[in-house]
């Protein structure tokens, strides 16, 4: 636990709220005493306080789903009663979520089983199980967290599989005969890219997310709306407006970079043709970031082995 990192201010807030939150969590029966719960709150609060204004800690702690937090931590500690409750509440949901994500029964079962193993903590460190549930902090619903963890596992798995497949199929795809990549990037393209970057950078993060979700990911308006918690019509209007204005803004940015209007339009058109190949390649490109939380699990295992 990271309670030793807790500031006095946090300690004070936790002490104030501990009785109330512990009663609300009703986790005595599943082995989470008030003291244990206090440590959990300190740990969660410390993590939050590290990147948030200190005056928000109290409301943050009050907003936690303490009942689910207690349950998750009790499960992580191996409490059988907690596991019974957990399985009653989430077993079916977990499988249904896995099925929705994997879209195929056996893959869904495999995915759900993998997560169960992580949740139960089949990996041991210093003789103790390391349960993924110990990383749940009660910020969102436990069910939502489980879905997110499932989705991350699916994405990680896909990346691993894809990496293997791509090695196998590389020669079949004729990679060795591919033309040198230096052909891309005439000077005009760099100006185009700069202009586009400038225009995109001026957009809000939400606008860029909507654009990426729709034009890169192929999400539907409804899906994007649900992801962002807004109405579908809002996304529709936003996309319509963005798509109409982007071209104009890029053309304007290109003319600022010394192109005539006609040259700018030609640059956009030429680029459309040139990019058709590149787009596919870049869509299939591996992002540099490491996998999701599996890196933490692996680190823990390594620590355990070390």
């Amino acid at each position, binding site marked *: 636990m990271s309670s030793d990192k807790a500031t006095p201010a946090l300690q004070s807030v936790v002490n104030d709220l501990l009785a109330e939150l512990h009663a609300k969590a009703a986790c005595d029966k599943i082995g989470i005493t008030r003291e244990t719960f206090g440590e959990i709150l300190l740990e969660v609060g410390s993590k939050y306080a590290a990147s948030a204004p200190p005056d928000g800690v109290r409301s943050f702690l009050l907003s936690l789903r303490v009942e689910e937090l207690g349950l998750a931590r009790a499960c992580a500690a191996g409490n059988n009663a907690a596991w019974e409750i957990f399985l009653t509440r989430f077993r079916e949901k977990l499988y249904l979520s896995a099925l929705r994500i994997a879209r195929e029964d056996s893959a869904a079962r495999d995915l759900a089983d993998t997560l169960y193993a992580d949740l139960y903590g089949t990996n041991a460190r210093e003789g103790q199980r390391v349960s993924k549930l110990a990383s749940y902090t009660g910020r969102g619903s436990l069910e939502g967290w489980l879905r997110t*963890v499932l989705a991350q596992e699916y*994405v990680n798995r896909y990346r691993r599989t894809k990496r293997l497949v791509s090695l196998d199929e590389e020669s079949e795809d004729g990679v060795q005969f591919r033309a040198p990549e230096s052909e891309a990037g005439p000077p005009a393209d760099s100006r185009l890219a700069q202009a586009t970057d400038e225009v995109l950078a001026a957009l809000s993060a939400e606008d860029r997310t909507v654009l990426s979700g729709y034009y890169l990911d192929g999400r539907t308006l409804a899906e994007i709306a649900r992801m962002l918690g807004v109405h579908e019509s809002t996304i529709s209007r936003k996309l319509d407006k963005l798509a109409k204005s982007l071209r104009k803004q890029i053309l304007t940015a290109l003319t600022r970079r010394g192109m005539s209007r006609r040259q700018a339009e030609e640059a956009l058109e030429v680029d459309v043709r040139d990019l058709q190949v590149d787009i596919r390649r870049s869509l299939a490109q591996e992002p540099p970031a490491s996998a999701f939380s599996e890196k933490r699990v692996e680190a823990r295992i390594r620590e355990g082995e070390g």
Partner: protein
Amino acid sequence: MVYRTIKEGVESEMPKVPKIVRERLQAPGAAADSHPDPDVLTSFAEQSLATRERAAVLEHLSRCGECREVLALALPATEPVQAGAHRATGSWGSWPAIRWAFASAGLVAIALFGFVQYGHHSEAVRMAKNAPPAATVQAGKENERGAEGRSEDQFKAKTDQSSQIAAAAPGGSGMLDMDRREPGSAPAHAEVAKNYSSPAVRGTLAHGPRQTGQWQQQNSNVLQAPNAPRPSPETKQIVSLPDSNTRVPAAREMVQVQSVPEAGPTSSAGAVIAGNAPQPLREAGSDTGVSRAKTASETPSALSKTEQTSMPMQGRSYQALAGTVPIWTITSGRLQRSFDRGSSWQDVDVFSGGGTSLELAVASRKSRKDSSKAENKEAIVRVFRTVAANGVDVWAGGEGAMLYHSQDAGAHWTQVIPSADTVTLTGDVVRLEFPDAQRGKVSTSTGEVWTTTDSGQTWRKQ
């Protein structure tokens, strides 16, 4: 994104953007910073992040396709309305299916209309010359026969009916128990006999209520027949087909019947059914040799009584639409029912007040469009987990202490919030046990058990 190629159809829906925009959106270094924790992503999806944190997550999402993918994959499963565009559910309850169903129903209705009219005319002529063979039984017997549940194709029955009547000798030896009928009510039973082959249908339809939703009522009577009050002894009922069999309409026929044009109101109980026929055949009715219910069953009091008993509420008629009590299931958090023993399932919209997609299609396609954002969100996040049915009495429960009750096989729903002594049910409803319509037990994910002995009027926490 990584897992989905760009769909060809996407661009056709919205204005195109230059492809350089796509490329730059995919710019390298997009996910340089670490991914948000699952907690944070979950809170983002659940709209519970503070503004500052939300902005940070949005910034990351705008550059990280994987996190967008995770976020999309982790959306709750209930998306019958909004995310349907991506899913080919193939269920009978999906909107395209419903649209086609109604289109088909319209065609069938037109065909039926023509057929009935033709039958009217030709039968009237034949009836004037011929009398059917022995055909009269008491209504009670009809009901008993109806309960035997033999099946027969409706059109075949009609054909048999016509042919047999045509073959009968004129004045046929008193086989037709014909009463002198009043002008207003005369056509009723002729129409009944023409349109419905089931003795049970005919037997009860003569006493049927007079409402506008006749497509429901007719079928309702089929189901209600065994339980409906027996006609008074002096009441005589029609039987025009000695060999007619009980027929329980299938679910799809609901649509057909529903689309039959309605005629103006008539004055007798039997005329409710006649109202389905475009042109009540007054003279033919007296010439068909079809006996009919008369006297007591046609008095207003008897009629109203019958209405109250066999048709206590409009919703109950839904049970009878398919001639059977539906079976229920939960699929991906959606409440579904089947009128055909599981061959096809339709989503049941509990939150808009009741009804299936079928009813909704009739009632409120427009209202769905106009539904508020809040309602949409509610529909999205609500997930059913369990359902219990006892005949037409249905209970459905799910997440967030959600509990709904329908007394009419799902046509209308009422939200129930079990509470006692200022304590209210909490957690997800995970189990429902209702051995009968009165007594029931509700178990929640939080370990609470609530019981009722009065159909949910009062509750006790155990």
